[in-house]
């Protein structure tokens, strides 16, 4: 099912949580809402589910205006961060709940519900745990049950709110791969919220980066990482360093020296230069480069991260060097960013 969010605004007690957000989600797509806390990603998810009502704007499921429908009628599967399983019901009863509460002919017979529950348990790799209670399961198992419960009603959309947030790192990685497999097997349109960029970039077909109640960028992992369209996205996704610079006649100047980067299409004036710490070219001499004093040097996994103080204002930037690179011993390092991006200073 295609989902379209059209100019939605949401206020809580007059405080805006979402400003005029629009988003098209394709049928069968696995999409991630990524952003820091308070960016409105969970609010957007809850609006799609119908757990909140938009202050303005509409949400369409296919061609149908879903904003007029109650939660019960929307037929969405929602998975909560803290599972929200029914403690007094067995695993099988939890999964069958959505079918049992139906009325009249749409409610399958008890036998069919039981069969469907164990089928879903097979799908989430928990066969044979029908009779257990949620208290007898581990966190990862509970979240699988929660997902099976959400899928039992054959939802139009599957919505997951930080589904792996409460689990430890290893279980998390495992479930991530597993969710991808389930999505590929079942083909549900799926939206999940996360603040973990690794999770979003690895798992999703497309990532929606949000900040302060607005969508900053929508794109594939490559789009988001390689061509960020705002300083926020550049800073939020992956490692980044930035420097205040000046553009003059198509050349980039740092303080009173050109740094050897041409920007022929940028307007003259103050700007901020963004680059990835690992994507730099080290130079020996310095005629047109960025040079700085080594302020700190840390070993991080396979690389060495060096912090430099640049110029009279002692702006700090980080670059990454190979572990055994001689430059790390020096007191002064000169470099030029490989791939970089300029954003006009605000």
């Amino acid at each position, binding site marked *: 099912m295609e989902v379209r969010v059209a100019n939605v605004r949401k206020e809580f007690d007059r405080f805006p949580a979402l400003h005029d957000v629009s988003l098209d989600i394709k049928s069968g797509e696995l999409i991630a809402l990524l952003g820091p806390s308070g960016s409105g990603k969970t609010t957007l998810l809850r609006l799609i589910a119908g*757990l909140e009502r938009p202050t303005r704007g509409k949400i369409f499921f296919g061609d149908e205006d879903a904003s007029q429908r109650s*939660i*019960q009628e929307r037929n969405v599967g929602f998975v909560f961060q803290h599972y*929200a399983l*029914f*403690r007094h019901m067995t695993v099988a009863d939890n999964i069958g709940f959505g079918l049992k*509460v139906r009325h009249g002919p749409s409610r399958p017979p008890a036998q069919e519900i039981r069969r469907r529950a164990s089928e879903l348990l097979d799908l989430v790799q928990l066969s044979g745990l029908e009779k257990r*209670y949620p*208290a007898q399961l581990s966190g990862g198992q509970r979240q699988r049950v929660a997902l099976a419960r959400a899928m039992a*009603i054959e939802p139009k959309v599957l919505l997951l709110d930080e589904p792996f947030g409460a689990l430890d790192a290893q279980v998390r990685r495992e479930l991530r791969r597993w969710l991808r497999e389930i999505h590929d097997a079942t083909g549900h349109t799926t939206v999940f919220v996360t603040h973990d960029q690794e999770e979003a970039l690895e798992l999703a077909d497309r990532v929606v980066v949000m900040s302060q109640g607005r969508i900053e960028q929508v794109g594939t992992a490559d789009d988001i990482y390689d061509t960020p369209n705002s300083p926020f996205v550049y800073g939020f996704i992956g490692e980044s360093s930035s420097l205040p610079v000046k553009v003059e006649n198509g050349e980039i100047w740092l303080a009173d020296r050109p740094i050897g980067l041409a920007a022929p299409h940028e307007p003259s004036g103050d700007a901020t230069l963004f680059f990835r710490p690992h994507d730099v070219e080290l130079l020996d001499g310095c005629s047109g480069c960025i040079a700085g004093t080594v302020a700190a040097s840390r070993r991080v996994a396979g690389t060495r991260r060096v912090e430099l103080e640049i110029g009279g204002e002692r702006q700090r930037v980080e670059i990454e060097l190979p572990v055994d690179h001689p430059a790390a011993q020096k007191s002064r390092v000169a470099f030029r960013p490989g791939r970089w991006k300029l954003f006009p200073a605000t």
Partner: protein
Amino acid sequence: MTTAPAQAGWRFRQPSVIPGFGLTLGFSLAYLTLIILIPLSGLLWRSAALGWPEFWAIATDRRTIKALEISFGTAFIAAAVNVVFGTLVAWVLVRYRFPGRRIVDAMVDLPFALPTAVAGIALTTLYAPNGWIGKLLMPLGIKVAYTPLGIVIALVFIGLPFVVRTVQPIMEEIDKEVEEAAATLGASRFQIITRILFPGLAPAIVTGFSLAFARGVGEYGSVIFIAGNLPYKSEIAPLLIVIRLEEYNYPAATAIAAIMLALSFVMLLVVNLVQAWSRKRYG
């Protein structure tokens, strides 16, 4: 001093970083013995002074049986009424925000604080045939004061806070997400209450019921004013005990007390078993 080898099985003292296990356990046992165990065993001792046939004669005396029936019957009805309306009061206090909520919340505790005799006198004045409420009920043929119905009303008054205060904290803990999950699965508001919320509250409701019931069975002060205390009709067992005491018939008094003790013990045991069972299932 010998270091005991690590043995499998039960050990009297679990290793713990918190000191004072011996002292606190010793004090607790001595205290409980002094406050509860000695008086209760004294009671059993005194009633054991009666021979079995005499004990049986007192126990099966029609007046004793009637008094026990009235005590346990009215306490049961009152506890049942309190479960329904106490849960409702707790629901209103937990779920809604309205002006005066704190005052209502504080009011629930009044029956705890009020001397029971005061409550009894106040209720009697209200429900007596010439009282404010009694006057209105009289033409309908409903007599409250000086009947078992009056006892029930007094016990409802006394027992209400027990239900509210046991159910309220559990209700506050209910995760909103669980209700939302049920709603996204298509459950109506009514289905959420009956299938999700109520089963979750059931253990607390059972506890509240048993507390209100236990309190009702032992209540004396408020009841004797409104009950009228007619033997075979509205005489409660605690009053019968007092009557026997005033007749210096100590064995009979302790015999009735021992029966009450046994019945209450069985009740509490059943309630505890129900709770242990539900804890084991739902964690």
